Each structure stands twice: as C-alpha cells, then as structure tokens.
C-alpha cells in the first residue's frame, strides 16, 4: 500500500475517532491547579477567631492560578467551604485575608508582609525554598512527583488560628 492511500484512510479513521470522542474537553491538572485546590482545602482544617463569614483567600504577587480553575474549584466545594479568592495589591490589605498565598514573585517583600501580619490570624502559605524560615506557616513542596506541605508549628501556634490535628497529621512538621 502506498503512503498516499494510507493517508486517505488515516483521515477517515481520524475523523471517526474525533467524532466519537465527543466529550467536553477542558484543562488537565497542572501544578498550580493542585496548589489552588490545596489553598481552598486548608480552609476546612482551620478555625478563625470571630463570627463566621465568607473566607478571603488572598493571592499576593503575580497570580499563577488560572481563573477557570479557581471558578471550577469554588463551584465544586460550594456546599462545604464558603470562600472567595481576592487579589490585593497593597500590603496594608493583607490583614483582611484569612488565607494568604505569597507568590514567588514577592519573595523580596516576604519580610515586610510577615512583620505586618505578626501573630495576626492569617494562614500564610507559600511555595518557595526556605518558605518556613522566612516566616510562612505552610510551605508547599514537591516530593516524589506529589505535592506535599510542611508546617512551621511555632509560627502557626503563635497566631490565633486553631489548626486541626488532622492537618498536622498530613503535614511535615518543622519545629
């Protein structure tokens, strides 16, 4: 059989295959999709002081998350977690957050943000090297192709957050 006649047959097969595939096609999971899911899920394991209200999950710095992912995650957890994502651009607004994600782009401002939030009830999460020594409570790390997290138990306890023991069990504890 020649290549040309093969191509004709291939085209027909391809068309058939694509037509029968006919499912809704959307994004595959990336590292940051998974990190967004972590941020949202942390809300179930932490209690904030004061009356319950919708939680503010803040992204400070260059936003690495896809809007479509965030929307899809919020929708999936709608009954269980009452939260919204916010993107503050000024340091002063960070105290209004419940969960704060410090993006890699703001590594230089880590110190400032952490001093500002000293012992405030804000769960500070990041995903950089030495995230914990720099003052974050939770650092997202990759281990054997899976996303894991480490908790700085001292800074977490110093804040007025009630962190569930279940979360501590899942985390790598760093003293």
């Amino acid at each position, binding site marked *: 059989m020649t290549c040309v006649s093969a*191509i004709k047959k291939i085209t027909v097969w391809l068309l058939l*295959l694509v037509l029968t595939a006919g499912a809704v096609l959307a994004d*595959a999971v990336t*590292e940051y*999709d998974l990190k967004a*899911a972590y941020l949202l899920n942390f809300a179930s394991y932490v209690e904030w002081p004061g009356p319950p209200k919708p939680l503010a999950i803040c992204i400070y710095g260059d936003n690495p998350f896809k809007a479509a992912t965030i929307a899809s995650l919020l929708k999936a957890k709608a009954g269980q977690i009452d939260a919204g994502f916010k993107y503050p651009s000024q340091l002063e607004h960070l105290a209004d957050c419940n969960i704060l994600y410090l993006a890699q782009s703001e590594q230089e401002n880590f110190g400032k943000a952490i001093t500002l939030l000293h012992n405030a009830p804000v769960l500070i999460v990041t995903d950089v*090297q030495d995230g914990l020594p720099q003052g974050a409570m939770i650092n997202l790390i990759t281990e054997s192709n899976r996303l894991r997290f480490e908790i700085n138990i001292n800074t977490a306890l110093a804040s007025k957050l009630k962190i569930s023991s279940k979360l501590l069990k899942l985390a790598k504890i760093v003293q």
Partner: protein
Amino acid sequence: MPDSPIIPGSNHRLKSRLKLSIAALLFGSCIRVFATEVDDIGKMDLEQLMNVELETVTASKYSQKLSETASQVTIVGKDQIQQFGYRTLSDILRTVPGFFITNDRMYDYVGVRGFDQSTALNGRMLLMIDGNRINESIFDSGLLGSEFPLDVDLIDHVEIVRGPGSSLYGNNAFFAVVNVVTKDGGSFHGGELAGSYGSFDSYKGRFSYGRKQNNGLEYLISATGLNADGPTLRYPEHASPDNPAGITSHTNDEHNKQFFAKAGWGNFSFEGGYGRRYKGLPGGAYGTNFDDPSNSYQDSEAFVNLKYQKILSPSLAFSARAFYGDYDFRGFYHYGDTISAAPVHTWWSGFEANFVSRHFDNHTLIGGIEAQENWLQQQGIFFDNPYTVFSFDERDSHRIGVYLQDDVVLTNQLKLSVGARLDDHSLLSNVLVSPRFGIVYNPLTDSTVKLQYAQAFRAPNVVHQYQAYPITFNEDGTFRGPGRLPNTGLHAEQIETWELSWQQIFDHNWQFTVTGYYMDMSKRLEEIQQSPEFRQVANLDAEIGYGAEFELQRRWNNGALLRSSYSLIFAEDMDRGSDGYILSNVPGHLYQLNLMAPLFNPQWHGGFDMQMLSSRNSPQSKTPGYARIGLNLLYQPITNLNLSAGVYDLFDDNRLEPGGIYGIPQEGRTFRLKFQCRF
C-alpha cells in the same frame, strides 16, 4: 538451553487463569489509571490531593519540572501505555519525536534523529530502569523489544531525553537517555492478573502482587511468561529448488520469562529483576542454514539496585546506591553439519553517591561519583566437529566517573545550567570530559526558549577492542571469509550537539515546540575491511546530523491526549568526500501522531497511533516508506477489569526494513487481545 514450545499448555493455563480472575473481580475496589482532571481535584479532600501525581522528570538525576530542563524531554505515562496498547518498550519509543524502530528479526533497534543503531546494538543510547544502567558491559547494548527484561505493564512512565546525557551519565548517553520508571507497590493494592493472546500464537501471562502497608513498607513482586510461535517469513535471497519462495516458518519462535521485585521502606529501597528471552533465529543470519529451527539465541539480563536516600537538611539531599548486573548470551548457529556456539557472559557491580544542595540562593548544585567494576567480560565463538576455539577473550575492567552540575536561577525569566563529568575507563588511555551548558529563557509566561550545547561519548566496548578470529578457508583450501584483528588503540567516539528550541503554549492548553539541532560526531567506531584478509574496528572521521522537530501536544481534562510531531532529518557522512555524502538508510521525514480519548462513556477508551517514515536509501537498496498505524480499544466493564483489543500496523505497510539483498521481512499487521484484572 532452549526451551521447547509449550503452546497448548499455555492456552489451557490461560483459560483457567481467566476463570480465576473473573471470580476475583467480585472483590476489591477499582484503581483509576487515567489522568486527573480539574473537576476531579475539586471534589477531593486534602488527603486525596496529596496522591495526585505531577509530571516531572528524574532523568536529570534530581526531580525537575519539564519546563525547567534545558533538554528536550518526552514522557510517556502508564495511561498511554494502556490506552495505546503498547506491548514493548520499542512500541513506546517509536512514538517519540525523531525516533524510529528497526528490526532485523533478532532485536529491535531505535533510530534517533536519522541514525539507525542496528550496528551499535542501541549502544548510542543510555537505557536505564529507575536510574540504573541496563546497557550491559560486553556490547553496551540496550535491549528494547520483547528482550527488554521488564514487563511493560510494570512501567509507571518512561522519560526520554533527546540529545546527549554524558555530562551526568558518562558512557553511551550519546544520542539520547531513556529512563524507565517502574510502578510502586502502593499503586497495586493487592494482586493483578493479566493475560493476552496475539498474532502468531503469542500467549503472555503476568501475575503481580503489591501493596503499601500502614507501617510504610511498600513492595511489589511480579512474574511474566510469554510463548510465541512467530510469523512465517519470506526471504527471496534464500530461494532454492526445494523452497522456491524462500519461506521459513516455526524458526522465529520466542519463549520469555521475566521476574521483578521491588520494596521500599523509609529511606531504603530495593529492586531487582531478571528477564530471559529464547528466540529462534530465522533467515539464515550470519550465513547459517536457512529454515533450520535449531538456530537460536538467548539473552538473559539481571539487575539489582539498592538505594538509600536521605534529606540531611532543608537544603541538602543525599543519595547512595549499590548496583549489580549480569548479562548472558548464548547463540547456537548451524553451518552445514557444523554447530557454532557463541557464548557471552558478563557481570558487574558498582556504587554511586550523590548530593543535591540548595544551600546557595538560586543555585541547585548536584555532584556525584559513580564507579563500576566489570568483574567478567567473556566472549567466545566455538565450533564442534572438530572442536575448535574460533575466538575467545576474557578480561575485567572498571570505570569511574565524577560529575558536577549547577542549575542557576538568574532572574525569573532566565535559568542557566552548567555541568561536566569526567570518566576514566581502565581500557582507555585518556580521561573523557563531557561538558554541558544550557539556558532556559521565559520571555513571556507562555513562551520558553531553550539552548543547549553538550558533548557526549561512547567508549569502544570489549568486542570492538578485543574480538579476534582467523581467516576461514573452504574445504578445498580456497578463501572463505576474512578474519578479524583486535584494536586496542581505539578511542571513544564523541559527539557535540547544539540544540535550540522554542516552546509556546497557546489558548492555555496547546503546546507547540520547535527544536533545531546540529550534531557533529568524530572518531566514530565502525568495522572496516582493514586489508583483503582482515576486518577491524577503527575510529573513522566525522558524521554530522542536523534537522528540526515540530511538536504539537494537548491533554484534555477527560484524559484525552494529542501528541503529534514532524521531523525533518539530514545526516551526512564526511568520510566519503569533501562535499559530504548522504548516509545510508536515513529517513528524510518522519511524522508521528498519537491520539487517545474516552469514547462513548468513561468505560471506553480509544487509542490511535501512527508513524510515517519516508523511504530510506543505501547504495545497495531502497526501502520504501511506510505509514504504520495502531488502533487500540480499551473497555472497563466493571471497575477492576480492563479488556483491550489492538491492531498494529493496520494497513500492513511496514513490511520491510533495510538489510540483506531484498530487505528484512517484518511482521506486518498483527493483533492482540488482552485482559487485566485486580483483586
């Protein structure tokens, strides 16, 4: 010694296994093997999220994101292996951009960027299982087809790095590095039974058992058996009055066994495997009697890897491993009434220790040392009737390498990678230096530009250096064939490679990559006619290769995947005239398409793969191009049962590979039915 075919027995065993497995299906739970989707992770709790796998590459000695390596990496995961119905490692490799597979009815060889490796026995490529070298220490060959010592069902994913890797791995990482990563015991949750039936009466069965215990111990054991009758082949050059078409059947049979075990506990991990393939030698190769079922050969390889990994501080990780390997080859060739035996045996052991340090800001430093002692490297050719030692050599050797690499984050957009490895081989006079330099530049979030320069080498093996045999004469005293001389002054062949690539993600999901490369080889090792009476391996002048690879990829939320690539290939031999000369059997064009998707509903999955290769010419022959298509249908009627049906080379188009006078006949269209169940 060769096994005798036991096909009726296997058939019966398979049937009883099928019954057993259906009973087993009533228990247990299903393990999803398909890609995770964004909708999926929305529904997961933290514990489940922690088990979602991210795509990273470890062929760079430490886990690194694909977008951050300066090399061109392709990853083929278990979902693809299952949905495309890949039967061997060769089936996987033939879908990699710039790769094509040839077969001489003995072994599978992978051609990389136009360079066929059939004479190098895949020695211009480093093949590893979980970071442990599989290229043995006689021919440095890499076994890829059914001769590969691991069952493909046990593969978690395969990492294929195109381009050189000697700066980390030393010898043989010349054109490419292939690292086969095995599944963990924890991914099994109990037993798994698989069986398949395919063309030419091929029966294959596998039983595996693995789990992860609450105390952290994780283990996997697995055994595989295969029996195949093999195709009937036609060799026009062997036509005779008795056999006018040159047909041979029942001379290409295969009988394989594979065992694998793996365990991990805390910082320690162990794995070991053994694969043995006995195969009939069809087609009168090496001038043996044609259509004689007693011509056979057998390859066995064993490997053991014991590893210790420890994170010493937040910025320092240490790992050490000890390894052992054994390779045994037995060939039995019949020439008239004379039998020739060609036994080869080698075994080796060694250790490697390395560290990854992130102590200095923005630097990831990796350094290590690797040493290997080849305790025995034995090769021989014997004749009986009368008993003659035609060729024999036995020796031992060692090699030691040290490497250092620094991956530097200069700015958010710019990353640099600089490294080198020094290798000392006891059978070579000079130390080999393999430097590498890479840049990864992200001008925009969705664009990546990569530039890489590297040097790599392939050391002459003990066959190149020491195989020797005398001139042969016919019974009447006339000259029959040339002898062979050793050559202890051989140098390693070397390659310099430049690669420039641009990767663009558009519309969030489509990934387009174009790569240009230029490869300059010097001192290449080749057997030449040194004089009318003798052949010898020599270091010849340069070969160059250059070309471009265009890739388009997309993965969909529902597990669907598209991988498509076109390669434009040029290769020249600078030895045959100052203007360069087009090398033999180089395909100028290669197009590959892989498409898999759920069909009808999530229980059904379809895979379509195609490789189109343009014609290959040599002064002796012209091998026509082909379009080779595979179709595979996977059905999960209940959660822990998979049924699949596949057809390979659907249009029966890949009928000939270069070699001999009329080409080497191939299997053509074949099929396979397979079941797999968990309990």
